[in-house]
């Protein structure tokens, strides 16, 4: 069974490919949806095409599946009528699957289920990464505010932090917001 993954995000495609290989599928290709990707796809004659629901190129792919003369067998979106939760899970995870005519449902389902799990795992990873990035940038803002207080008010680092913290508590705000306000004010006043 030849599986083609159409995906913009190199990382997510790799995560999915690894999962499929571990499950014993070995004929897997990754095609980024750019330029003439449909011509490449036609030549590959895939049995299953997996694509990110968020990709704007889905319309281009579907058009190719509709009009292509190069494909020996028609390919259509995989919808298991007997399993509505599966459809919902796939849409929630953001993955769509297209399969060639005649491929048995039992053969497609495990591929789609695996894709859904991997897409979800990737989304979780991504949001953790975003959180970590936010945390990092929060820390940088607080550090900068601390150094303003240290140089302008002659405070030690722990005292500068304690001052930020108590102002935040008094104002009912987050420390990072107080720190940001301090940096903005300091910039306006020409400090630093």
């Amino acid at each position, binding site marked *: 069974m030849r599986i083609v993954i159409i995906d913009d995000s190199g990382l997510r495609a790799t995560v999915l490919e690894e999962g499929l290989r571990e499950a014993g599928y070995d004929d897997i290709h990754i095609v980024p949806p750019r330029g003439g990707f449909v011509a490449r796809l036609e030549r590959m004659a895939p049995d299953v095409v997996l694509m990110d629901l968020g990709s*704007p*190129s*889905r*319309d281009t*792919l579907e*058009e190719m599946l*509709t009009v292509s003369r190069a494909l020996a067998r028609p390919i259509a*979106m995989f919808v298991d009528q007997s399993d509505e939760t599966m459809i919902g899970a796939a*849409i929630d995870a953001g993955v769509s699957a297209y399969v060639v005519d005649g491929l048995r449902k039992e053969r497609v389902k495990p591929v789609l289920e695996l894709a859904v799990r991997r897409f979800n795992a990737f989304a979780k990873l991504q949001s953790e990464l975003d959180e970590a990035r936010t945390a990092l940038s929060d820390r940088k803002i607080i550090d900068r505010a601390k150094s303003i207080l240290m140089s302008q008010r002659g405070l030690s680092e722990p005292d500068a932090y304690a001052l930020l913290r108590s102002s935040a508590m008094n104002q009912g705000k987050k420390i990072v917001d107080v720190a940001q306000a301090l940096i903005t004010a300091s910039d306006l006043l020409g400090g630093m």
Partner: protein
Amino acid sequence: MTTDLRIAFLPLTDAAVLAVAREKGFAEEEGLHLDLVRTTSWATLRDRLVFGQVQAAHMLAPLAVAVTLGLSQQAAPLAAPYKLNVNGNMLVMASAFAQALDPDIAARLDDPLGTAHDFAAAIGLWKRKPVIGVVHRFSSHSVMLRYWLASAGVDPDRDVILRVLPPSLTVEAIGAGEIDGFIAGEPWGSAAVDAGLAEAVAIGERIWRRGVEKILAFRTPWLEENPDTVDRLLRALVRAAAWCDDPQHHEALAHLLSRPQYVDQPADVILRALSGGIVPRVDMAPLSMPDFMLFSREATPFPWRSQALWIYSQLVRWKMVEHSADNAAKAASVFRPDIFRRALANSDVAMPGASMKVEGAVGSPLAVGSKRGELTLGPDRFFDGRVFDPERIEDFLASF
């Protein structure tokens, strides 16, 4: 109690009525909270609607007909009780191609028939088959482009290459030379003009003076099970649409739509379609086209069944579906004037007395029978002068 509704849309100027219903309090006044789900392809918008992730969608009218007829992946009966706009498309071509057309752009746009013939000649001069981007096989854009090309003897399936790509990728694609031009909803034509990549070649409103564009689509069973919610939404949209059409609000509307959660393009580019000041080439002053995109006046939101049938006739013409009485009935059933009437029964909205009309027959503004108040229909001619009588589809098809 507030009802939550999820509605999918694509980043386009003609999603305006939904954005305004949410942001200007019209939905809230009807006890609705709208969660607008930004989507980047028509396929995903369709799937979100068909599989119930959203309750309604800002959809291409021909796509709603196609899904109902089972022509676009999973078949599902869809219902459109409300038209979100008429008009709003523009065909733009790279300047290298447009050189072969009338250099007087205002004259070019005013004479779609002449321009279609010039375009046909330009195809012969071009180094290969021109590649024209269309947003979807089942889009008003594709249907109108085909109608226009065919009027000059161009076979859209043989003489040009129609490449499907979503509106948001059109500008990038013409910049990269992957396409020679495209027809899309605003602001994408204006964005390509603004980038100096293309110039206006035809305006949707000049091809069909009142061309059906986006509709609000529901799954029919859901629509039938939730009459109260549907009615409240339609009332909110009618008021939002009137707000959108008011010239005093165009600037504010352009700014609202320019936000990242909506169209995410510069407000001054979005404003052009709203105010009807279309810049046809980057170095030119705007041309005045007051009917470029309509949301409210002339009962724009009213879903005439004859318009669903006109779309159907074009799908048959291009062999996308086989004509049968059953298919025609299914297509006509997508547009739901009965629901529109029910929802606005106690409002002051002027309501057409009929549900079908002969399309393309109104040459100048015409006062028509209305249940309430004054209703004037704007000119709805096709540029080639054809008229479509929904009772005589076979004759109409035989005329091509």
